[in-house]
């Protein structure tokens, strides 16, 4: 037994070493910060909280996981007891744990495997792609090991007539079933079955690093290593002074080791694909395929695998991503798809120059005018006309201000979004907030450049904005745009921009709470709130907009997918400025239908891009009389102000 165990462990070690060699190709990535948060996430995952977010597969996984742990514990006890002479197996412990607990959890383990077989081979959800023989190679040996284990227990009970047999109820059932074979038959079969049981387990152990079972080790580690706090979904920065410059991901060595580790943590469960807006709209992207295609290519080609961007993963797939992070939110093992996808895009955009026409035009516009809106019909400060608002330039001491209002390009150049800015100004003035607007000094925050892989242009814009803000002594910033929020709050730290940044829903919620905003709402309107990805999943702010809506006394209903599971409007990742080549269904139309299905008359959001997308989505799906209104939260607040 020890010989086969040694062989198994050697084969196992070789498999791990092969994996390790791939992970070591990657660049450095810090994973030891925020240890408390990392351990909390790991603990939640081990307690099955993450997988249990989906009922049937969650229950299946929990049964198999806990069943296996207890069975493994039971085996360990036997090892300690009979091989190391640490006598544990007697008395109450023997009956309570080794007999009853192990027996029952063995049953649960079998039940879990049965659910897995049922789901994979009979139920067959569309995102659970069958990959044979690897699926069967995981399930069948585990089933056989468990069944032979029970058979062995049943044989023992049948032969020795253990009067404590009732403590192993399932084993007892097996013993009744096996009794017809007779005591001598059972006695002679026992050693053979035992050897088969042990050898199967050793073979399985040896195979772990070569099969999906590797996730027993890689998944918990990956959960620990994945970033536990905001900012998430951010690409690794590019060092343009390096020699040679690494422009995005083309080869495995361009990835961080964590990005490579992600590939081996994947259990192919398909949850990412099942929530991906691009997949849902029939676009040529599946986040699962991105991970698996990279994994397969790198396993086969090692350090020379590639070109990864545009070769292993097709440009159309990469450009279809809205960077909404629904995949990362759904992933039970902490895979960070988005930063890898943007890394691949960086190579397409900056090195190969394989970009959709709209991206090229947007980057050209950014370069020429420092905003992404082409053919803008108004100037950056036109929307201020008729408003008594002071510009930051005219303020002597920025410390006297409560906040500096960062308008963002959408409100500066898009007439619909200007109404959000005007509404917010009304609310701020009503509440007596001391503020100034940056207005004429603003440049694009660079989000569209960064998410489309144009890190070079992003760097220029980010540096210039931080230099301007720091020069003006700005410390507290207000914005109504979640993309500006993400940049100003998190991503500008890289350029030395360290600000306290508040989203307008957060500020308005606190102004209402403080009694500084007094409302006289008309009660009763039925509304539903669409969580913008960059406010919700990126910045974990789900409550502030809802608190504001509740203060407005509206009848708030939730869509089928909301909060962390919100479905993207389709604008993220630069999509507000370009169309996919193979434009399947419109993502915004899918979302507008979901909003309409709540019976709400208005869909409310808190992002100028979501607003535009939902408005056109609502037009596309409206049927004659029933048309869905689209509003920003603050527009409803401005309408309901008490005079």
């Amino acid at each position, binding site marked *: 037994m020890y010989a086969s165990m040694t062989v198994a462990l050697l084969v196992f070690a070789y498999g791990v070493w092969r994996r390790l060699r791939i992970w070591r190709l990657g660049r450095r990535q810090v994973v030891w910060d925020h240890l408390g948060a990392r351990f909390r996430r790991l603990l939640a995952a081990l307690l099955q909280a993450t997988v249990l977010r989906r009922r049937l597969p969650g229950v299946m996984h929990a049964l198999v996981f806990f069943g296996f742990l207890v069975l493994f514990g039971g085996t360990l006890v036997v090892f300690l007891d009979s091989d190391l002479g640490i006598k544990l197996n007697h008395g109450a412990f023997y009956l309570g744990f080794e007999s009853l607990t192990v027996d029952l959890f063995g049953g649960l383990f079998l039940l879990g495997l049965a659910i897995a077989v049922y789901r994979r081979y009979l139920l067959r959800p569309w995102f659970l792609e069958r990959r044979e023989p690897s699926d069967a190679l995981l399930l069948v040996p585990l089933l056989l090991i468990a069944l032979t284990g029970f058979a062995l227990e049943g044989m023992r009970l049948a032969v020795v007539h253990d009067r404590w047999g009732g403590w192993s109820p399932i084993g007892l059932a097996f013993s009744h079933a096996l009794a017809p074979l007779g005591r001598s038959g059972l006695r002679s079969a026992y050693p053979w079955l035992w050897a088969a049981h042990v050898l199967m387990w050793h073979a399985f152990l040896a195979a772990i690093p070569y099969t999906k079972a590797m996730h027993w080790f890689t998944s918990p580690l990956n959960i620990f290593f994945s970033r536990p706090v905001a900012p998430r979904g951010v690409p690794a920065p590019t060092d*343009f002074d390096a020699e040679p*410059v690494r*422009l995005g991901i083309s080869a495995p060595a361009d990835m961080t080791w964590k990005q490579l580790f992600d590939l081996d943590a994947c259990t192919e469960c398909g949850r990412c694909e099942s929530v991906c807006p691009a997949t849902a709209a029939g676009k040529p992207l599946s986040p699962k395929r991105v991970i698996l295609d990279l994994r397969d290519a790198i396993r086969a080609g090692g350090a020379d695998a590639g070109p990864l961007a545009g070769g292993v993963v097709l440009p159309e797939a990469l450009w279809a991503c809205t960077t909404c992070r629904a995949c990362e939110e759904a992933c039970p093992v902490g895979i960070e798809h988005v930063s890898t996808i943007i890394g691949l895009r960086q190579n397409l955009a*900056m*090195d*190969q*120059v394989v*970009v959709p*026409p709209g*991206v*090229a*035009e947007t*980057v*050209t516009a950014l370069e*020429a*005018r420092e905003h992404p809106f*082409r*053919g*803008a*019909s*108004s*100037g950056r400060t*036109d929307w201020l006309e008729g408003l008594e608002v002071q510009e930051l330039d005219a303020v002597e001491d920025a410390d006297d201000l409560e906040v500096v209002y960062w308008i963002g390009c959408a409100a500066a150049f898009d007439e619909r979004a200007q109404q959000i800015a005007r509404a917010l100004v009304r609310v701020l003035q009503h509440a007596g907030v001391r503020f100034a607007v940056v207005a004429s000094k603003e440049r694009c925050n660079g989000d569209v450049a960064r998410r489309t892989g144009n890190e*070079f242009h992003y760097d220029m814009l980010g540096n210039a904005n931080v230099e301007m803000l720091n020069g003006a002594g700005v410390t507290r910033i207000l914005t109504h745009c979640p993309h500006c929020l993400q940049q100003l709050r998190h991503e500008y730290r890289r350029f030395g921009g360290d600000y306290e940044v508040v989203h307008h829903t957060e500020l308005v919620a606190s102004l209402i709470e403080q009694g500084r905003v007094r409302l006289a709402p008309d009660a009763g309107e039925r509304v539903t709130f669409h969580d913008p990805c960059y406010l919700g999943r990126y910045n974990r702010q789900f409550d502030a907009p809802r608190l504001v809506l509740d203060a407005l006394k509206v009848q708030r209903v939730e869509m089928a997918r909301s909060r962390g599971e919100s479905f993207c409007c389709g604008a993220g990742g630069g999509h507000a400025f370009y169309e996919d080549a193979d434009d399947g269904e419109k993502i915004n139309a899918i979302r507008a239908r979901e909003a309409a299905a709540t019976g709400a008359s208005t869909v409310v959001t808190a992002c100028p891009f979501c607003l535009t997308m939902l408005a056109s989505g609502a037009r596309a799906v409206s049927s004659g009389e029933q048309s869905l209104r689209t509003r920003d939260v603050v527009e409803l607040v401005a309408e309901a102000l008490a005079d």
Partner: protein
Amino acid sequence: MHAVVLLKEILDWELPASKFRVDDEAKRPPLDLGPSLLGPFEQNALELALQLKDAGVVTRVTALLAAPGEPVDGLRKALALRCDEAVQVVAEGADAADPSQTAELLVAALRRLESPELVLAGRQAGDWDHGQVGYLVAERLGLPAVGLVFRAERDGDRLRVWRVAPGGVEQLGVRPPAVLTVTSDASLQLRMGSVMDRMAANKKPITRWTVEDLGLSPERLAAARRLEIVRTWAPEIERQCEVIDGDDPAEIVATVLSRLEELKLLSRSP
């Protein structure tokens, strides 16, 4: 074949109407109204030159620009897109709005450049819209010129060019050396360069020739001047808004139609 592209930077053509104004004394918009950018037709001409280089028809592309000061957009962009050389005629004392004077400077520079066999210009500069420089250059160099070209291919020892003609497209053969003026076309959207090329372009030199370097005397330059701007003004846009109210959509449509007829903006067919 060595091709030279004539470039010009103009005031941002997407400047909102509300921001546009004219300096009455200078009779032109002030320089600080907005960024100066490589003009849209010049972008098309540059793209056509680069496509001809990709196709192997042209072996070398030089970007040539005549402007005072240190223009930043056009020549750097040309280098970042792998033009082989960038030359500026430092046109102090010349009027960028005068096609004749501009052509004089460009011709002097073209004579100094090694045997360009193909000169590509935008069909017109997007600011003054004269559309003359390309033809003036051709005339002074004694070369054939084809206008409004949007595509070109090698055809033996000639170039086959496609040009916009009234109601259709005309195909012509032209034997270099020749001048082409280039019009806009979806296929001539200026490409986006790679970051590597862009960073390399920042290290490439821009050749700068003064008017004296080109052997042009101030008198000769002044004599080349043909344009006098009498007056420039921005059109005044008046907006009048009339709200037509009503509950019945059919009635509203009828009112809108009759108002449009009254304003002579619409006439109904009998």
